C-alpha cells in the first residue's frame, strides 16, 4: 500500500518474506567462508602469545561473541524504536528473531571468558565491572524473551518488549566503557579506530574474520527465524495462505 517509499515496500511482509528466503543461503555461505578463513589464520597460522601462551586463542571466539552480544542488543533497540515510533509490523518481528541469538552470544561471551579467566586470572569468575555488566546483558536478553513470551497478543508483546529494550539499552555503553571508567582486571580495548592496533596483524586479521563470520551467522539465523514468525503472525493474510498451499520451502 505504500508503494511510494521503497523502504516501506521492503517492510511489507509479503515482499520481505521471499527476499529473506533468498538471502539466507548467501549469508550462511559467507559465514562458513569467513569462519574457515578466520580459523585457519587464528588457529593454524597465528604465532604464540608471549604472555599467555596458546591460551590466548580463545580470543578468536570471545571477542566476536562479546561484540555481537552488544551489537545485537543495539540493533534490537533500534528496531524497537522504529516500531514504537512508526508502528511498523516488521520491526517487532525482527527484534523477536534476533533475541535468542543475542542471548546465546552473551552466553558464549561469558562461557569463553570464564574458560579464559581460569588459566589467566586463576578464577572462573570475578565480580568486576565488565563481567558484571555483560552478565546483566544476558539477564536483559532473558528478561526480554520472558516478557514477550508471557504476553499472548503479539502486537502488545512487541510494544512492551520494545519499551524494555529501550530502557535496557543504557547497559551497552556501560559494558563497553566499563574498562575505562573503572579499574578492572579485564583487558581494555586493543582494537580502536583512532589508535593503531596493539596486536600482531595476523591475530588481528583472524579476529576480524571471525567477527565477520559471527556477523553473517547472526543475520542468516535471524532471517530464518523471522520467516517463521512472519508465517505465524500473518497466517490469515492471503499471501501466507498462498505460500502454504503452493510450494513451500
Amino acid at each position, binding site marked *: 500500500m505504500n508503494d511510494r517509499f521503497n523502504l516501506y515496500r521492503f517492510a511489507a511482509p509479503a515482499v520481505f518474506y521471499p527476499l529473506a528466503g533468498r538471502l539466507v543461503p548467501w549469508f550462511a555461505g559467507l559465514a562458513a567462508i569467513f569462519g574457515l578463513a578466520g580459523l585457519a589464520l587464528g588457529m593454524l597460522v597465528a604465532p604464540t602469545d608471549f604472555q599467555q601462551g596458546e591460551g590466548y586463542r580463545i580470543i578468536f571466539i570471545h571477542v566476536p561473541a562479546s561484540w555481537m552480544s552488544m551489537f545485537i542488543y543495539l540493533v534490537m533497540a533500534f528496531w524497537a524504536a522504529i516500531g514504537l515510533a512508526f508502528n511498523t509490523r516488521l520491526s517487532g518481528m525482527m527484534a523477536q528473531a534476533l533475541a535468542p541469538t543475542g542471548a546465546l552470544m552473551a552466553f558464549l561471551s561469558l562461557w569463553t571468558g570464564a574458560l579464559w579467566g581460569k588459566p589467566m586470572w586463576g*578464577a572462573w569468575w570475578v*565480580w568486576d565491572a565488565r563481567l*558484571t555488566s555483560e552478565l546483566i546483558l544476558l*539477564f536483559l536478553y532473558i528478561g526480554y524473551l520472558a516478557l514477550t513470551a508471557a504476553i499472548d497478543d503479539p502486537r502488545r508483546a512487541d510494544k512492551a518488549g520494545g519499551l524494555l529494550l529501550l530502557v535496557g539499552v543504557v547497559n551497552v555503553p556501560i559494558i563497553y566503557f566499563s574498562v575505562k571508567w573503572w579499574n578492572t582486571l579485564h583487558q581494555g580495548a586493543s582494537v580502536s579506530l583512532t589508535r593503531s592496533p596493539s596486536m600482531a596483524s595476523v591475530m588481528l586479521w583472524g579476529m576480524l574474520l571471525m567477527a565477520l563470520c559471527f556477523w553473517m551467522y547472526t543475520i542468516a539465523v535471524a532471517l530464518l527465524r523471522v520467516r517463521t514468525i512472519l508465517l505465524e503472525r500473518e497466517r490469515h493474510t492471503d499471501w501466507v495462505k498462498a505460500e502454504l498451499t503452493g510450494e513451500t520451502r
Partner: protein
Amino acid sequence: MFGIVIAVIARDLRLALRRQADIVSALFFFVIVVSLFPLGIGPEPDLLRKLAPGVLWVAALLATMLSLPRLFADDHRDGTLEQLALAPHPLGLVVLGKVVAHWLVSGLPLALLAPVLGLQFDLSADALVVLTGSILLGTPALSGIGGIGAALTLGLRGGGVLLSLLVLPLYIPVLIFGAGAVDATVTGLGGQAHLSLLAALTCAALGFAPWAAAAALKIALE
C-alpha cells in the same frame, strides 16, 4: 483415592507448561539473587566461599516463596477452588496434588541449577553434590509449609508480603539444616546428619501440611 492427586498434578503441570515463562522466571530469579550478593559484598573468593551455602539456600528459599502466592490464588480468583472444595473427596488430597506439582516446577529445577551457581562461588565437587542433595531433600518441605501460608493468606490484599512473613520463620529450620549440610561438607565434617534431619522435616511437612492447608482453605472460602 489417589486418582484425584494424579489428576490435580496433571492439570497443574499442564497449566505450568502452558506458561513456561513462570518456571524459567523463577529459575532466573534464583540466579539473579545469587549473583546480587557478590555485587553487594565484594569479590574476595575466600569470603565468597564461606558465604556460598547461606546465600544459595536463602536464594532457593526466596525463589520458592515468590511463586507461593499463586499456588491457590489463581484457582481462587476464577472460582475453580470452590469447585475443588465441592468435589466429592477430601480437600487435603487436592492440596497434596497441588503441593507436589509446585515442587516439580519450582524445587526440582532449583536443585538442578544450584551446582552451576555453586561454581561461581568456587565450591568443591563434594560440596556441590551435598548442595544439590540438600536442596532436593529440603524443597518439598518448603512447598508443603508454603502451602499452609498460601492458604492462610488467600484472598487477602497484600497477601504476598504477609505470606512471606508467615512462612519465612517456619522455613528457618530447613534453611539451617540445608545450609548446615553444605557447610559441614566444606569444613570436612560431613553433612550426613544434617541431611537426615532434612529428610525427616520433609516427611513431616508432606504428611501434615496438606491437611492444615485444606482447613485454611475452607475458612478462606466461607
